[in-house]
């Protein structure tokens, strides 16, 4: 990746982010991993998904800052974490926690949680 022109590499990252969003029914972009979150907001969001026993894919944005840049361009959302269900941005930590507490999260995830659990990095 270091050998490529920056613009080309960014396009590749954007395509990879976009593909991950469409391929995973429940996908969380986060700092760190579900096992070892690197930020309190990511940790709380993972906690809500785990409390509902939801299978989800997770992408750590920390290894390459371009992941976060390209994700934010695609999603029009500036912060991490970001939860996608069936290709749509559900929200960041605040919205996910509000929806968890109101029961809406369980509803939204009711038919989106059957996909295979995978770890992408």
């Amino acid at each position, binding site marked *: 990746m270091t050998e490529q022109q920056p613009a080309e590499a960014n396009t590749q990252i954007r395509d990879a982010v976009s593909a991950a969003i469409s391929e995973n029914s429940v996908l969380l972009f986060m700092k760190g991993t579900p096992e070892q979150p690197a930020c309190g907001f990511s940790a709380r969001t993972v906690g809500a998904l785990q409390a509902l026993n939801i299978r989800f894919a997770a992408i750590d944005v920390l290894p390459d800052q371009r992941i976060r840049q390209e994700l934010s361009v695609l999603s029009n959302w*500036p912060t991490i974490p970001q939860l996608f269900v069936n290709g749509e*941005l559900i929200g960041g930590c605040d919205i996910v926690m*509000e929806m968890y507490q109101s029961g809406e999260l369980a509803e939204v995830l009711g038919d989106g949680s059957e996909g295979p659990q995978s770890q992408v990095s």
Partner: protein
Amino acid sequence: MPTTDEIRQRIEAAIPDARANVSDFTGGGDHFEATVISPAFAGLSRIQQHRMIYEIFGSEIGGPIHALALKTLTEEPND
């Protein structure tokens, strides 16, 4: 580095009839929490409501404003 008061004023100036309550939840001057009440949120999804606020700060979010936790309401909660 923005202050809680500055963040409150910018939110209230940008969103019609908004009232904001902003706190610095770590005391470090870069992790903020805002509750914003505005009739302008009516009919919008939470995502759209939060985007309206994030847009006020642009690239400051993730920069000088490391975190801005949001809660948006269309009216005062009854309690």
